[in-house]
């Protein structure tokens, strides 16, 4: 049975119950246990350069602050940051090209896991895809070159379905950008396997002529990010890479936000925004008081999650594409599995319980509270699905 809709009891007057159930995946719950460790490389050699801290050589807080400054510097160069958007009075035609590619990604414990992705270049591996932002009424043309030998597709529920794109072929799909909101594009072939192994990305449709609303008349924001969550069971990725249908029970060992995990102070690549979700500019929330930040949260994975933010309560605006009947202020918000989605706003108000009051120079975590997700490979706490919130 798919995970039941959350809070239907509380909010069903505004929730279209069949929307999500339709998109839930019925998957095998066979308990045949495929030996996951079989596919592991040498674990001992694998832990990438962690600092083996023993008594006396613990990293001190002062060192941490030094690291964090470096990390911040790294995050503001090179990769761009919040989704940028300038509203237009008129509809436009947007052309985008994706290459379906595959490759290996090294996880926090050194294990290489296979992914496939809608990449921006024929040689890249953009897992998840670079997010897209358009405006209601725009015509969107997407050309997909399938560089792999396997059949794939490009689907946005309610907007477009490419049908099969056989290996080695290309296709172009066109669609009219419909209702403003946050959408997952994904590969429906071999559902959910191709989606899980990386073929997904986010599309934002802005309301016509608006730069600060989720939908016309919604609460407003100043900056916006896409957060795509995924749960990784390397045994499944290995099977799918080999063209097999996974037969083991799904047991995720890595947990990603926008394709990577967090890494704590003292770890190798701590300051690398391409490897550490704490400093990934696609994920990190940074701002001054009043920099209300919209998070468009999509779950490409198979696990229900509990998202928890420190520093501020969030305004919970939409759930599975529907504006909520009441906007609640929450420090925990449920994210349903198999393409569940929410739009939430981190308001950047002064942290209410600080004494004396503070307005800047603070950093907090966003992490999943189903704490299994804060690990990699069954351990390595803090190498999971988390990012940082910075009060500049």
């Amino acid at each position: 049975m798919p995970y039941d809709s959350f809070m239907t009891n509380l909010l069903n007057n505004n929730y279209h119950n069949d929307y999500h159930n339709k998109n839930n995946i019925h998957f095998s719950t066979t308990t045949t246990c495929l030996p996951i460790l079989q596919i592991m490389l040498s674990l001992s050699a694998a832990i990438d350069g962690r600092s083996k801290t023993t008594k006396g050589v613990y990293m001190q807080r002062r060192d941490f602050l030094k690291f964090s400054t470096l990390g911040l510097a790294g995050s503001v160069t090179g990769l761009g940051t919040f989704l940028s958007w300038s509203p237009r009075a008129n509809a436009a035609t947007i052309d985008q090209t994706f290459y379906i590619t595959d490759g290996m990604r090294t996880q926090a414990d050194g294990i290489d896991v296979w992914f496939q992705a809608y990449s921006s270049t024929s040689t890249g591996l953009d897992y998840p895809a670079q997010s897209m932002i358009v405006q209601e009424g725009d015509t969107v043309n997407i050309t997909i070159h399938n560089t792999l030998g396997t059949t794939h597709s490009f689907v946005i529920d309610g907007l477009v379905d490419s049908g099969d794109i056989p290996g080695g072929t290309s296709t172009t799909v066109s669609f009219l950008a419909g209702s403003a909101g946050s959408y997952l594009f994904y590969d429906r072939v071999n559902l959910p396997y191709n989606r899980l192994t990386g073929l997904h990305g986010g599309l934002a449709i802005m309301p016509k002529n608006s730069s600060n609303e989720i939908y016309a008349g919604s609460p407003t924001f100043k900056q916006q990010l896409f957060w795509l969550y995924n749960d990784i069971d390397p045994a499944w990725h290995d099977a799918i890479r080999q063209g097999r249908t996974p037969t083991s029970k799904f047991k995720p060992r890595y947990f990603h936000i926008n394709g990577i995990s967090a890494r704590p102070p003292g770890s190798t690549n701590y300051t690398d925004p391409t490897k550490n979700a704490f400093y990934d500019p696609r994920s990190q929330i940074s701002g001054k008081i009043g920099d209300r930040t919209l998070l468009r949260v999509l779950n490409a994975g198979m696990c229900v999650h509990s998202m928890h933010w420190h520093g501020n309560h969030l305004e919970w605006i939409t759930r599975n594409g529907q504006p909520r009947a009441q906007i609640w202020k929450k420090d925990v918000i449920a994210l349903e599995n198999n393409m569940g989605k929410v739009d939430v706003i981190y308001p950047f108000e002064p942290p209410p319980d600080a004494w004396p009051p503070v307005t800047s120079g603070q950093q907090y975590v966003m992490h999943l509270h189903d704490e299994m997700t804060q690990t990699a490979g069954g351990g390595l706490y803090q190498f999971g699905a988390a990012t940082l919130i910075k009060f500049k």
Partner: protein
Amino acid sequence: MGGACYVYPDSPATPDRVTPDVTFERTIYMNGSVRMDDGRNITVWGFTDSGGGMGGMGGMGGPFPSPAIRVREGQIVHTVLNNPGMMWLHTIHHHGIEPSTMNDGVGHTSFDVQGTYTYQWRAAHAGTYFYHCHTNTVLHAEMGMYGALIVDPPEGPGRVFSGGPSYDVEAIWACDEFDSRWHNLPWDAATCGGDAGLNDLNPDYFIITGVDGNRSALTAPGVAVTMNRGQTLLVRYINAGYYPQRIRFGGLTGQVVSSDGRPLPAPVTVSEINSVSAERYDVIFNPDSSGVYTVEIEYLDWIDGSVLGMARTRITVN
């Protein structure tokens, strides 16, 4: 403490320290035990109230869950964490309370407490919260290192929040699941890597506020509720586990008036609530007929939504 990785021990002075309105003293214990209905004793860790001069190393274990922290809106609070010796590291994170970074109790954005640290914060919003350790959190919270944190309105207990509903009877249900296999791990398990199975929680016990929900919680004092018709009951429901839960109120209908320490714009009528880890819901009941209502909490698999187990308690209306 040998092989711990990615921990940040420190015991700085509290910045901008002021005289608090109220102080709570907490000391670590790591040799607690909970007796389950099947006769097994499961190891738990937690915080003792060391405010009465009974602090120290907690050789006798301690209460599970840890003693509640209860304050009034507007109060400046000191939570003193005593973690003497070099044996292990812990913190206190006041979940849902939003203080400065230094007082947030998250190891990797500030420090893990080795020695003593005084967390300073001011309770801004009445409501239901909880506090828990944030060091190797995946393990430490599972081991039971949490307690209720209630912020009453300035006028004190009896009203959920200023201008909100009043209540005569109060229940705090912190619903948690144990995977007993995890309960023999060391405090720093797998922090340097290796596979301790911390990605895979297979719960075998289901608990309401420290009591086995199999049988004991049906009647346990402090968990099961007895009230009279005409009285108002406030249930402070805390998902203190990791998996999603569904709580059914045994046929009673209640009003959710606040969640996560914030009033809802308007109350919402419920007979059951689905929650995810660390959510809190404050539900008001005014039962108009006497009877025994069996409350069921189902613990749901995070992948397929199947029911992994159930805990039960009762509301008896006389």
